[in-house]
């Protein structure tokens, strides 16, 4: 039962100096390619387990998948010479592309949120969609998160497939009632009669001095809600793929985006593809230590990885992508190989995704660990406004390097 991953090129170094405008943070990423793409075949659409193809092929007849593609270290450099197909795109544009393609494909898909229509979205993810699809399909709502999320749920129960945008993830705290009680539980309490194929998405995470309330990480609050899935995107490739998969899924999915990642640039395939909602992504295979991360911290980890490689360590970096449920297979295989785990996350120390992940790994793979799991999380403080303080609340690459060195002693 081979694990299949599509290789993703390592990120080049982050610019260490905090710049004040998000636009100046443009990252060149090596294109994502799999082995088979290098041979000139159609690009990998998603990684797939070799077991029970019948289950995975449901509703995905449009896509090709490569049954055996394993990322290797040489993938990074070789991949850049890969086929010229595909197009360069920024992450927010990738999200828009995904959304637009799904709206074209299925007329039941609609968007609701504040300023998504005429304004095009506060991060321009829905720019141009209202002109194309009309005001009812890209609905500008009043500022009433609880109610319009509930409206999205009611619409989902009666046959539509809404994508609800929270202008900032933090605002969804106002919609917690609807998300927990209705989104998560309704399928169950109705005995399976009603499905809620809603996607709730929005930017979260610590930005550039946005203040405490705009810098919240809601994944830790939502993770206990039964009946929902949570995914976090980190590259344009997986942003588009996860957006499309989330829209096509019958389950309610919460898609976490990050405010600082919207301007990442990457070359993505032209073809239709989706990313599996329950799988993690192998970013960099290695031997010495498993580093589990997601969203923006992936880039801090990759920056630290460069330093670590220079110092002679070989970290394996996995972007867990699926925050609920965890992909225990990918993670487990990695733990069994390296026997050391470092979790790097942006959530708070208390009760965050890292805490759950630590528990899950301890329960399932305790025998394979040579050292206690180290979890690097943000400080348990409301994110301060001051730039220096803000820098100290989140995990920085230097801390990651130190942690790995300590772990590997």
């Amino acid at each position, binding site marked *: *039962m081979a*694990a299949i991953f599509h290789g993703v090129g390592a990120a080049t170094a982050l610019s260490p100096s905090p710049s004040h405008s998000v636009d100046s943070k443009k990252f060149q990423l090596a294109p994502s390619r799999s082995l088979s793409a290098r041979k000139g075949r159609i690009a990998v659409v998603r990684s797939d*387990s070799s*077991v*029970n193809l019948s*289950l995975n092929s449901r509703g995905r007849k449009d896509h090709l998948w490569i049954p055996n593609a394993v990322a290797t270290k040489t993938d990074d450099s070789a991949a850049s010479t890969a086929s010229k197909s595909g197009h360069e795109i920024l992450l927010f544009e990738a999200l828009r592309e995904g959304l637009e393609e799904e709206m074209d494909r299925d*007329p*039941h898909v*609609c968007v609701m949120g504040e300023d998504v229509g005429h304004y095009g979205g506060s991060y321009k993810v829905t720019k141009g969609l209202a002109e194309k699809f*009309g005001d*009812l*399909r890209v609905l500008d*709502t*009043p500022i*009433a998160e*609880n*109610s*319009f*999320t*509930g*409206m999205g*749920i*009611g*619409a989902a*129960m*009666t*046959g*539509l497939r809404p994508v609800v945008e929270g202008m900032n993830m933090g605002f969804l705290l106002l919609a917690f*009632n*609807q998300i927990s*009680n*209705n989104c998560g539980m*309704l*399928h*169950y*309490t*109705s*005995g*399976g009669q*009603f*499905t809620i194929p809603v996607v709730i998405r929005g930017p979260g995470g610590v930005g550039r001095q946005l203040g405490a309330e705009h810098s919240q990480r809601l994944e830790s609050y939502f993770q206990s809600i*039964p*009946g929902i*899935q949570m995914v976090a995107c980190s590259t344009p490739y997986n942003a588009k793929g996860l957006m499309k998969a989330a829209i096509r*899924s*019958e*389950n309610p999915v919460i898609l976490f985006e990050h405010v600082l990642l919207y301007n990442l640039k990457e070359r993505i395939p032209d073809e239709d593809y989706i990313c599996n*909602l*329950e*799988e993690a992504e192998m970013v960099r295979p290695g031997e010495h230590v498993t580093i589990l991360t997601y969203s923006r911290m992936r880039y801090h980890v990759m920056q630290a990885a460069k330093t670590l490689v220079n110092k002679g360590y070989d970290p394996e970096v996995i972007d867990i992508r699926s925050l609920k*449920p*965890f992909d*225990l*297979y*990918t993670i487990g295989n990695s733990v069994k190989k390296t026997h050391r785990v470092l979790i790097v996350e942006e959530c708070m120390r208390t009760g965050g995704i890292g805490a759950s992940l630590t528990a899950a790994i301890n*329960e*399932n*793979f*305790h*025998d394979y660990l040579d050292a206690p799991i180290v979890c690097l999380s943000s400080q348990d403080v409301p994110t301060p406004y001051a730039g220096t303080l803000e820098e100290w609340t989140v995990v920085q690459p230097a801390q990651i390097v130190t942690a790995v060195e300590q772990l590997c002693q």
Partner: protein
Amino acid sequence: MILGRAFEDMCAQMYFRGKMFGYVHLYNGQEAVSTGFIKLLKKEDSVVSTYRGHMHALSKGVPARAVMSELFGKTTRCCRGQGGSMHMFSREHNLLGGFSFIGEGIPVATGAAFTSKYRREVLKEADCDHVTLAFFGDGTCNNGQFFECLNMAAIWKLPIVFVVQNNLWAMAMSHLRATSDPQIYKKGPAFGMLGIHVDGMDVLKVREVAQTAIARARSGEGPTLVECETYMFREHSLTGPEELCDPAEKAHYAARDPIAALKRYLIENNPASETELKAIDKKIEELVEDAVEFADESPHPPRNQLLENVFADPKGFGIGPDGRYRCEDPKFMEGTAQCKKRGIERGPGGGGETPGDPSFGEGIISPIFESALPLASCQFPKKFTKYLTSADEAHDRDVSIHWQPYFSLESLLSEEPLQSSLDLIAGQSSSHHAEMEKGRQVKELKGQGRLP
């Protein structure tokens, strides 16, 4: 209306006989509102209700059998025993719930109305004129979701009717103490929609108003807010019989019983005679008895229903350590996945060693507890399994082994001292804790009349 009244009375009886538990809210006295509105709807129209929703379900066409067996927690409809009294759903009859938090259903109703408009304008289903009715009480009218939805329904002219069942009491809070302007129908024009006040104890008046409101919605003129002045003849819920309302107020409304009023009207104006009405009464009685019998005979949900329907697509349970999707493991889905001595394989099933094992405590077993028990497996002392797995109606509750032990009626009547799980952990043989708990439960059951 008669069905509703008879049904609710039977619910009360069944509750006190121990057939159903939890919060049950009865609709006696307000039947005119439900009947007056819902009987005018088509099958495709949607109804959203609150926790006081049995009658709405019955009016919309959900069979009495299905509702009763849902209340008994049995697996035969309508929500397979997973929803209970406060969560009645029916896709077939477009009953969208059943919500326990007040105000929670109003946005859902707005969403259903939005779908109707979407179908007509975007999907070009020209004949789609489905209307949604949202029922809620006076207490809800002070909740933010109510106002937010009035606003949204008005700006988009959604085909929805907001029906307020103003029975003057939000549990123990008088409407007059809670609301700055108690005339709820006036809040409609504040949002640009029609607001109507009607006597909710008279089904014919309600019906007239309902016709206007529903016609408005169907023609695309927009939402309406209808305030029905009504009253509850029973207490707020069966778990809390204390009331703060004045007996004179109760008597005043009892004199305006909607069923009695309609009976009088029919007999005086001759559309029906006494005998015909008596025949209806009898028929309903039989129907309700049949519903109870059906519910009684229906099976309890089996263990493997626990994890069904958590996700519409069960891949949402994720990928297990062996690389397969969790949902592909039949033991996981039954909740009886293997529990190893060391390192419990996670999935909520942490139970016994073989499928069908009457073990208990999936996900609740903690390693500490396991090691305290002088047992080789995750089984519990025979005494406990008897209590926990008996099909006796008294055991239809969830038992958490970490908290107080739950004793069967049989054991409570016996004289032998019982051990609680906590004492087992602490290594004590007899228990002060168990005796205290036993005393408490005896007292409670005597109060309910279930023990001599």
